[in-house]
C-alpha cells in the first residue's frame, strides 16, 4: 500500500513537470506566432509609385494630356476628360493595367499579390476632425507570406491624397 502511494506521488510529480514544460512551450509559441507579419518600407514600391505618377495618361483637360497624379486629382473632383470619359474610369483602367504589367503577380512568383488604395485624408489642425474618402481601390492575387509597401503623398488642399501600396511576397 505504501509502495503504491509512493509510486503515485512520483507519477504526479512527473506529470506536473511535463505540464509546466508544455505550458511554458505553448506560451512561447503563442507569443512568437502573435507577432505581426514582417512589414517594412520597400524602396522598389516607393520608386514604382513615384515613377508612375509622371505617367502620361490618355485623359486631356487642355492641350496637354494629364499625368497620373493630375488624373487622380481630377478624379477626386469627379470631373470628365475632354472626350467626355469620366476621369475616375480612365484612372481605374490605366492604374490597374500599369500595376498588372509592372508586378506580374502570380503564385509562381515571389510577388503573389498587391493592394493599391488611393484615398483623400483631411485632418483639422487640432486633429479632432478627420475625413477619409476613398478614391480608388485595386487588388490582384492572393496574399501569402510577408508584406511590404510604401506610400506616396499628393498635396490636395486642405488635405492630402494618399496612394498606399502593399505588396505580398514569399
Amino acid at each position, binding site marked *: 500500500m505504501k509502495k503504491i502511494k509512493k509510486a503515485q506521488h512520483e507519477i504526479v510529480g512527473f506529470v506536473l*513537470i511535463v505540464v509546466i514544460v508544455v505550458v511554458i512551450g505553448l506560451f512561447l509559441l503563442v507569443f512568437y506566432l502573435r507577432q505581426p507579419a514582417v512589414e517594412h518600407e520597400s*524602396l522598389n514600391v516607393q520608386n514604382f509609385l513615384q515613377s508612375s505618377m*509622371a505617367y502620361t495618361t490618355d485623359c486631356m483637360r487642355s492641350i496637354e494630356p494629364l499625368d497620373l497624379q493630375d488624373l487622380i486629382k481630377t478624379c477626386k473632383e469627379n470631373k470628365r476628360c475632354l472626350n467626355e470619359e469620366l476621369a475616375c474610369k480612365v484612372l481605374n483602367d490605366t492604374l490597374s493595367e500599369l500595376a498588372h504589367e509592372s508586378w506580374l503577380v502570380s503564385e509562381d512568383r515571389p510577388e503573389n499579390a498587391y493592394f493599391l488604395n488611393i484615398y483623400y485624408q483631411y485632418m483639422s489642425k487640432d486633429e479632432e476632425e478627420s475625413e477619409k474618402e476613398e478614391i480608388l481601390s485595386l487588388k490582384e492575387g492572393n496574399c501569402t507570406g510577408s508584406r511590404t509597401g510604401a506610400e506616396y503623398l499628393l498635396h490636395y488642399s486642405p488635405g492630402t491624397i494618399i496612394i498606399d501600396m502593399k505588396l505580398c511576397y514569399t
Partner: protein
Amino acid sequence: MLQFAKSFRMKIRKITRKSQLKTQEMAFMLMAVVIFFIIAGLFFIVIKYRELYRTAGLFEKEKALSTVAKLAETAEFSCNKPLCVDTDKLIVMQNRPAYNGFWPIASLSVVKIFPKQEEVECTKENYPNCSFFKVYDKQIENKEEVSTFVSLCRKEKQGDYWYEKCELGKLIAGFEIKQLQ
C-alpha cells in the same frame, strides 16, 4: 543492545541508499528538462537567424536599388524630375566608348514596362517605336542584375505643340560578382 545497534545501522544504510536513488532521479529529471530547453532554444535561435539573414539580404538589395536610382539622377540621363530618365538622351548615350569605366557597373539597360510593346531594341532609326535600350555593356558574364522603376520621358509633338510624354520603365544595372581566387 548489540542487536539494536546492528538493526539501527541497517536502517540508516537503507535510508541513505534510498535518498541517493531519489537524488539521482531528480538529477536525471533536471538534466532532461535542461536538455529540452537547450534544444528548444537552439530551434528558436535557428529560426531567428534565418529571419535575420533574410532581412540582411533585403537590405543589401535595397542598397543596390538606391545605387541604381542614383544613376537615373545623373546629368547624362535625368529629365529634371525625380526617378526620371530622358529617353532622347538615352538614344544618344548608347555605345559611347568614352564612357567605358565611367560608371561603377558592368552593364546598363532600360526597358519599357508600360504601355506594353513588342520587344524591339532601340536604335536611332526606330526610336521611339521600340522597347529597350542597351546603354552600356562591359561584356562581363559573371554579373548580377538589379532593377528599379523609372519614368521614361521624351518630347512629343502634337500639332504645333510640344509636350513631355512619360511612360513607365525599368533601369537595369548589372553588378560584377567578385569571386575569391
